[in-house]
């Protein structure tokens, strides 16, 4: 569905050339759900805008839905749907009018466009607002309308740029429910950008981590976490057993460092284990056998933020908007 080779975008800002995207190779198969994850300014949106023909690549190639983005941008646009960061509905327009015009822009006739618009407004809980002007909609309603606009022509490939930025958790969940339903019904290929790691984690099957204009990881969220981060294990033992346990843990965690804090006669150890959930029971047994039983144990599965931290040495949260 998408193939890019050495896709590059440079911007010139006051005679300085900024490499926004540095020769990325991306392949997306039909039906995939892929998230571009990275901090603001990483090049996610720039990549997306090149794939949707809104930006012309500086060099490299990109084929989207079978067509080259530079040779046939109008053809690409006809085959994809794009939901940008802003609100797509014109402020003074009625919701239904914008929907029908959007269908017409994609070559649908008025009858089909009207039927499709009503269908989408119903499934996105906007049917009662069809004659409302866009400016009178709430933020969540506008975002749902953006999704409706993007789906008017039933694209096989849908791009979403930061779909849920600025939405409250309930609206986010609601929006995702709609997107996932569309996908289940039509097998739509979906590519989205996000800087919400939990969103990339829970919604996407595949995460492409982008930083400083380059792809630094590309895999399922589960694999990325297992390979790159591992579970965070915290064990508390009596101070008297600390030396024993330190030895055991050091052997279990060949790589990575072992942190320890002592307080009130208790020592708390923290370490990362790539297979923590499986290793923990065995570890507890050995500690028990060594006469150094655990007083408490905490096991935390990794997040994509841990992955990003491992890859870049920075937290994704630092780069994210407040």
């Amino acid at each position, binding site marked *: 569905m998408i*193939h890019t*080779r050495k896709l590059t975008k440079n911007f010139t800002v006051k005679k300085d050339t900024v490499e926004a995207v540095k020769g990325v190779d991306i392949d997306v198969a039909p039906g995939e759900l892929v998230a571009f994850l990275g901090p603001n300014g990483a090049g996610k949106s720039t990549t997306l805008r090149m794939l*949707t*023909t*809104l*930006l*012309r*690549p*500086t*060099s*490299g*190639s990109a*084929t989207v839905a079978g*067509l*080259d983005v*530079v*040779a*046939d*941008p*109008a*053809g690409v*646009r*006809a085959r*994809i749907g*794009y939901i*940008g*960061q*802003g*609100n*797509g*509905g*014109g*402020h*003074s*327009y*009625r919701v239904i*009018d*914008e929907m029908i*015009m*959007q269908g*017409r*822009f*994609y*070559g649908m006739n008025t009858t089909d466009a009207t039927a499709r618009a009503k269908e989408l407004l119903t499934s996105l809980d906007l049917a009662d607002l069809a004659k409302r002007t866009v400016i009178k909609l709430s933020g969540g309603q506008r975002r749902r309308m*953006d999704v409706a*606009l993007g789906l008017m022509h039933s694209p096989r490939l849908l791009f979403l740029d930061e779909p849920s930025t600025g939405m409250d958790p309930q609206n986010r969940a609601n929006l995702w429910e709609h997107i996932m339903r569309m996908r289940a019904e039509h097998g739509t290929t979906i590519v989205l950008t996000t800087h919400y790691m939990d969103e990339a984690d829970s919604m996407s099957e595949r995460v492409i981590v982008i930083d400083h204009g380059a792809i630094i990881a590309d895999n399922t969220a589960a694999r990325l976490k297992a390979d790159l981060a591992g579970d965070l294990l915290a064990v508390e033992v009596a101070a008297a057993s600390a030396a024993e346990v330190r030895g055991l843990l050091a052997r279990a965690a060949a790589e990575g460092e072992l942190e320890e804090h002592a307080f009130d006669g208790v020592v708390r150890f923290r370490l990362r284990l790539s297979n923590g959930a499986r290793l923990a029971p065995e570890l507890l047994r050995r500690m028990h056998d060594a006469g150094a039983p655990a007083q408490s144990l905490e096991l935390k599965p990794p997040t994509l933020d841990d992955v990003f931290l491992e890859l870049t040495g920075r937290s994704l949260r630092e780069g994210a908007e407040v």
Partner: protein
Amino acid sequence: MANTRVEQAEQKPGLDRVLRDTWYVFWREMLLPLRDPFSLVFSLLQPLVFLGLFGPLLGSAVGAPAFGGQSTLQWFLPGVVVMIALFGTSMTGSNLQYELMTGSYERILATPLSRSSLMIGRALKEWAPLVVQGLLISVVCIPFGFVLHPLHVLFGLIILGIFGIGLGALSYSLALVSQNKEWIFWGVQQTLLFPLMILSGIMLPIEAGPEWMKVASLFNPLTYLVNAERELFAGAVGVDTLYGLLAAVVTAAVGLVVGIRAISRNTN
């Protein structure tokens, strides 16, 4: 996988495609006044106010000889029509500015609509009310001695439409260039509008002015347009009409070239 070089030229959409897309863009723009017809009523009042309040002053201030033997109204009315066209189509970009600030321009840019249709459709929307306005004020002025030549007037409005496409495209480009600095749009638009208007003899006959103004007016495309409209509204078709048509076509061509460049520069 296609390994197309980046330098390869874009496929140009066919004329039928551009016309169809233009109609869609025009129609979307027209939905605003159609859904809110009151705005049309006000836009009809404005030229009447101008004719009613400025016309009489003009007649007594300048004196009949400057109008080439025509009645003041016959001379002034075509000027007012050109003025409405000028104000209307040069505002094309201002409506675009709102859509640039939200995401709706980008949303439309991501549809397969041809780029020229985005400008032409919007410019034509500013021109469309002019047809109604022009005919209406002409009819209203009949009791006051204005002689209406309907076909000539219609032809004059079409020439204005062609000119409007050019001016609209320029206004559109200006809005794109001044994105995120909205005041630049207004600054440039207002700064250019009034000298162009005065130097074309819309409000007052340029013949009454000093020599340098007459020379300057020769370099103003609007002058030819105003002269053409005056000739047509007087019920004649002659050299002035031809020059006016030419000025309109040149303006349209320049506007579209500049506009298409502005749009594609925006994607760089």
